[in-house]
């Protein structure tokens, strides 16, 4: 009875985002048959989407062992899964929803055995406590529970003589709303980030919306295709932010719009924008939150640069666009709000261009502005400078106010 009911529920899936799979995974987010969970503890299937770095395998194993029984791993991608059976993998071009449903049904009926622990079930560091309660330290002080160092600052705080403690932990690489692959060692004071250090860089983004732009390199491409890809890319970015401020339904709506744009349907973004504004999105993104300096904005380029007030857009120099009276849109404040408004503006402008010139073609090799940050390699990496001083929820908002290409450029890149 329980099995029969459970089999009809949306499949609880936790997504470990590997390389290349981000846009495809967003497709799962809007499927009502799939429940993409925020934590592995709530999932029955661990979906590994794309290739995972060798150095991230240990993180993946830890993630896997956090799934409650019955559990299974599902591989989605081309490189992986040669040694796993058919039921637990899908090629990157396939839609895995049906396979996931079947796997889930078999999992809860017992036809598919639950996976065992990959790691030994023991503390990562042995107990080294001493004292009355194993607290390790002297008197009332904490100590070294489980062999971990007491995270105390080296000197008393000169502000008032109190030695307040900090808390250091690693975050990533498979955290939701976190750049895929990025591992940061974050030091917290309460829920304010005091410092952050990059342990592992982000995966280089490879976007489904990149296709028409790659296409353009060697073939004449329709303007409509280029601009639709731009709108879709921005809508997906918008969806992430909407979800973070507690508007999951609007976020899904943005996802659905993105999918419809890609499927060449005619859509309007204004209703979504209006609904988001009515929900108090402005209040949720405080003015000045995530403001970046001019140099960083210029280094990153793309919509981030235009949100900082620089009307630099390769489309201004293209005859197809100039015939349509194209002028780049821009904001001035260069903060989270400005970047969100820039995405909305550019997506709306892109769709307006599509409807103004549905048949226009762009010659191959033409230099067309990509929807993401695209400039030459940055001088220094700034993601760790962006976060200190931010409260945790604000930090996530700031991170997600950049497109994945921009984020990738703010942390040292891994070797290709």
């Amino acid at each position: 009875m329980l099995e029969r009911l459970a089999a009809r529920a949306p499949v609880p899936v936790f997504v470990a985002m590997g390389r290349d799979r981000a846009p495809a995974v967003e497709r799962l987010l809007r499927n009502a048959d799939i429940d993409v969970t925020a934590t592995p503890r709530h999932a029955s299937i661990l979906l590994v989407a794309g290739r995972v770095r060798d150095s991230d395998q240990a993180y993946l194993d830890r993630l896997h062992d956090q799934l409650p029984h019955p559990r299974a791993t599902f591989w989605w991608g081309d490189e992986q899964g040669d040694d796993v059976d058919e039921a637990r993998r899908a090629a990157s071009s396939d839609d895995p929803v049906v396979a996931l449903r079947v796997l889930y049904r078999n999992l809860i009926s017992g036809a598919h055995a639950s996976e065992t622990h990959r790691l030994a079930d023991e503390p990562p560091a042995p107990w080294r406590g001493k004292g009355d309660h194993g607290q390790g330290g002297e008197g009332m002080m904490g100590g070294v529970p489980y062999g971990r160092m007491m995270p105390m600052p080296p000197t008393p705080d000169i502000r008032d003589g109190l030695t307040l403690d900090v808390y250091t932990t690693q975050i990533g690489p498979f955290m939701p709303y976190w750049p895929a692959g990025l591992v940061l060692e974050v030091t917290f004071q309460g829920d304010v980030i005091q410092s952050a250090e990059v342990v592992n860089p982000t995966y280089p983004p490879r976007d489904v919306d990149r296709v028409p732009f790659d296409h353009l390199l060697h073939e004449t491409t329709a303007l409509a295709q280029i601009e639709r890809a731009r709108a879709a890319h921005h809508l997906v970015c918008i969806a992430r932010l909407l979800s973070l401020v507690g508007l999951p339904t609007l976020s899904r709506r943005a996802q659905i719009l993105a999918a419809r744009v890609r499927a060449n349907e005619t859509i309007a973004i204004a209703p979504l924008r209006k609904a988001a504004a009515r929900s108090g999105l402005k209040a949720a993104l405080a003015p000045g939150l995530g403001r970046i300096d001019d140099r960083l904005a210029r280094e990153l380029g793309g919509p981030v640069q235009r949100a900082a007030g620089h009307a630099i857009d390769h489309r201004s120099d293209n005859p197809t666009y100039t015939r349509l009276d194209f002028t780049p849109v821009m904001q001035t404040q260069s903060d989270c709000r400005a970047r969100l408004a820039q995405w909305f503006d550019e997506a709306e402008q892109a769709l307006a261009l599509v409807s103004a010139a549905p048949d226009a073609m762009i010659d191959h090799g033409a230099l067309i502005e990509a929807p993401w940050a695209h400039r030459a390699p940055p001088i220094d990496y700034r993601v760790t400078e962006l976060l200190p001083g931010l409260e945790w929820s604000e930090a996530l908002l700031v991170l997600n106010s950049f497109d994945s290409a921009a984020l990738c450029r703010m942390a040292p890149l891994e070797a290709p």
Partner: protein
Amino acid sequence: MSVVDDMAFWIFALTAIVSGWRVFCTDSMVRASFLLLASFIAVGLIMLLLGAPYLGIATIFMMGVEMMVMALFMVMYMMNPAGLNPMVMVHQHRFSIGAGIAAFVGLAAVMLVTDFADNPVASDARVVTDLGKELLGDSMLIFETAGVTLLATMVASVILSSRSGRFGPADEGSVPPPLEPGGQPAGRLPEEGGGHGHHHH
């Protein structure tokens, strides 16, 4: 008193004593606070049994908030990240043992020598109304004066002690602390109308 009432009394009394004792045996500030809360809740329920509903439930209500705030402040000002590390909850052993014995003997003596009134209140007496009349009637001046004085003392002592506190001079408005000693204030600055204090230059 019915058998059920008797049983409830003994269960609550035992809970109050055992959880009160465990406060000193646990190894965590948070656990200690909430064990104390459990003890107070048991006492509040006994007051309910005694036919003092307002006092009993108000005890539970007030202690819930109080212990929560206390746990929070203890963790905040104790050098123990988030109250997660185990630690010893007792110190000054010799003095506290002495004080404990003295208090126990004193209270027990009071209990034994006092001639407690045996004057049951009628079951239909409007105890809550009477209590309200007492608190806000004849004794109102005393209670209100004491209450307002206490509140004023607390506010004043906070203001005085935080004049040069972690959050900057008290008379210049609250400023979040910097992340490093002597650094720029981190986090949100209220007077900027929600602007953010962390900028790159």
